[in-house]
């Protein structure tokens, strides 16, 4: 058995990862190029649709309703898939999902599997499992293709290669496409795209199995929906004789109309497009009289920790439609990039989802990677209260004694004083006077005991000598 259930994450090392990424010149150059692109796109798309905010409210309500009755809708969906000639496979864990996919691939003697972009594929590490079984997985999304060549994880949920410069892509292509003329011109993005297009084109016709993800599953019809721009997902699922859909179970909505509402906010929030180039509904295998399309249609419904989030303070995270708006607007993500987060899902949505899926001991650091500026919640098309949930994870991290000793001691000292108001005022008053004296000369402090990290990059204005509370008491207030 080649399936593995070990999670390969470096989330525990977030601090060190972040430091390395801040010093990574290529990454910083790539992030600089991308910065603003998504933000401006989303703003324009929102401004062009007066109903945008009302649609967000409806989209949230649709998901809340569906999650409330998830068991009903999943069974209704399965029945419809079966009626249309497809198969639903329920996978409790990543290892179960790997095993199901491998069984299907073996049953048709697959040598090559073509893949559309799928975050669930990343989550269950399906490429590793396929390779270990002697099956060649080919990523066909341009960004995924690039990072597959480089042996990297995606650094963004919709722009997997956003961390790379075109020069890095060129280097990877020259290293891997050795059958091509080494003197060819390959500097501009269009020549890189053309080369990838030519190479992948042949591969579309070689695979026995095509794997895609799903943006939505429809209970009414048993359909799956993919939303893409390149058309690679469609070529991956139309040409091979078997189509496998990897989907987590919260992707379901009751009706096509419900899907339409979510689709209207998805592309706008993600890339700023009104609608992506290709939105494709697939229902079952090809019909008897169809001239093309797959002969088999399988859906792997993945749980992998999600049902355990239902009914908890993290349930609202399951509304997420994976648009990436939270990371596009996050000052932390925009500084350190996606790889620093150490697992499949980066940015604010990853900081909330990852501890739920791989455990708070593995990913409990991530919710600290936030300035709590609130931009993520503000732009989330599904109104997910990301900062609130990050705070819940911090509480869990503290309760499980996973936060660092210095932070725990500091919090303990603060709590001791905070519970004793007179002592607290005495201590803070003393502290203010001390700081005021220390900064008397310059009016600023450029170093502080225990706060060296803070003063390393900026100066602290010295206090005026009295605390807020004492000034309040002496009547210094403006009504």
């Amino acid at each position, binding site marked *: 058995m080649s399936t593995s259930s070990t999670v390969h994450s470096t989330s525990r090392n977030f601090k060190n990862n972040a430091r390395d990424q801040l010093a990574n010149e290529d990454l910083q150059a790539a992030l600089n190029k991308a910065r603003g692109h998504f933000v401006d796109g989303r703003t324009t798309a929102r401004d062009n649709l007066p109903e945008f905010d009302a649609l967000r409210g409806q989209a949230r309500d649709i998901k809340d309703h569906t999650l409330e009755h998830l068991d009903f809708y999943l069974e209704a969906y399965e029945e419809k898939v079966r009626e249309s000639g497809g198969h639903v496979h329920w996978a409790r864990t990543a290892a179960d999902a790997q095993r199901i996919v491998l069984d299907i691939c073996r049953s048709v003697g697959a040598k090559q599997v073509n893949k559309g972009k799928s975050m669930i594929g990343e989550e269950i590490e399906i490429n590793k499992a396929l390779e270990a079984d002697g099956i060649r997985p080919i990523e066909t999304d341009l960004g995924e293709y690039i990072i597959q060549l480089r042996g990297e994880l995606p650094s963004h949920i919709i722009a997997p290669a956003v961390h790379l410069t075109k020069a890095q892509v060129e280097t990877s292509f020259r290293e891997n496409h050795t059958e091509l003329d080494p003197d060819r011109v390959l500097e501009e993005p269009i020549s890189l795209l053309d080369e990838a297009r030519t190479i992948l084109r042949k591969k579309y016709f070689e695979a026995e199995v095509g794997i895609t993800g799903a943006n939505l599953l429809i209970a009414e019809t048993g359909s799956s929906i993919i939303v893409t721009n390149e058309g690679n997902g469609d070529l991956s699922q139309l040409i091979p004789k078997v189509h496998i859909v990897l989907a987590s179970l919260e992707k379901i909505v009751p009706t*096509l109309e419900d899907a339409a509402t979510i689709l209207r906010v998805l592309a706008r929030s993600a890339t700023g497009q009104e609608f992506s180039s290709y939105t494709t509904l697939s229902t079952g295998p090809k019909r008897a009289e169809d001239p093309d399309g797959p002969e088999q249609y399988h859906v792997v419904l993945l749980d992998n920790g999600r049902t355990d989030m239902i009914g908890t303070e993290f349930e609202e995270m399951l509304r997420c439609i994976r648009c990436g708006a939270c990371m596009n607007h996050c000052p932390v993500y925009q500084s350190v990039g996606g790889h620093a987060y150490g697992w499949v899902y980066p940015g604010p949505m990853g900081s909330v989802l990852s501890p739920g899926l791989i455990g708070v001991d593995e990913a409990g650091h991530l919710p600290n990677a936030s300035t709590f500026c609130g931009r993520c919640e503000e732009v989330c098309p599904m109104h997910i209260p990301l900062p609130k949930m990050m705070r819940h994870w911090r509480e869990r991290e503290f309760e499980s004694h996973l936060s660092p000793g210095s932070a725990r001691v500091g919090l303990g000292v603060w709590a001791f004083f905070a519970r004793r108001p007179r002592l607290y005022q005495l201590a803070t008053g003393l502290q203010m006077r001390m700081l005021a004296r220390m900064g008397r000369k310059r009016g600023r402090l450029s170093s502080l005991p225990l706060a060296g990290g803070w003063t390393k990059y900026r100066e602290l204005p010295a206090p005026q000598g009295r605390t807020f509370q004492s000034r309040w008491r002496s009547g210094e207030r403006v009504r």
Partner: protein
Amino acid sequence: MSAKNNSGKDQILSSLRRSRGREGPVDDATAATLRARIAGHKRNIVPARTDIDHAGLVDLFENMAQKVFATTARVSDMADVPDAIADYLRGANLPSKVVMAPDTDLDAAPWAENALLEIRRGVPDEPDQVSITSAPSAVAETGTLAMYSGPAHPSTLNFIPETHVVVLPASRVVKSYEDVFDAVRELAADPDSGRGGLPPRTVNFITGPSRSGDIEQTLLLGAHGPRRLHIVIVEDGAGDD
């Protein structure tokens, strides 16, 4: 495999039910309400930009499609379609050898009268450079074509050739995706459609040509699907109101 599958299903369903404080499925009354919600498939908010007359919808469709880099042409009759397509191909320096959907809708045009076009009907192969299909529906809201798979329309025609030419009678322009869904439901239920109650295997909503922004967020057309999407709108007048 099925025994293992069932246990996965049982575990998932019972975990979901436990978190809702239930032992088993939802009660009968709730199930009936949820089934009615599905069967009713009520529309949510549909943007008001399409609350205009049909001629306005055709204009909106064309405008939105152009914004996402599709090109368009208008002709007044199916009889003009072959020449319009031949002109487009010549103007863009593209081959006149095309693969065309075996779609009876397209038979109304006098293809044989245009000596330039070399037409094969059927499924595209890798070397095919240009495809011609019709579109059963088009959504004005975002300039989106809707394509249904079936004997008359192999879905690969929408993706394999580098240039996709679409013949769209103006009467088929509708307001919203929801209008397309209603049409798909009607088609599935129609006993003459031969679809046995099922929707088409694949419904493709297509909004402009293939594109990618994966290299330094530079917008590039023609990533894996067509580099060019050309829409010939036939002003058949049938949908005017």
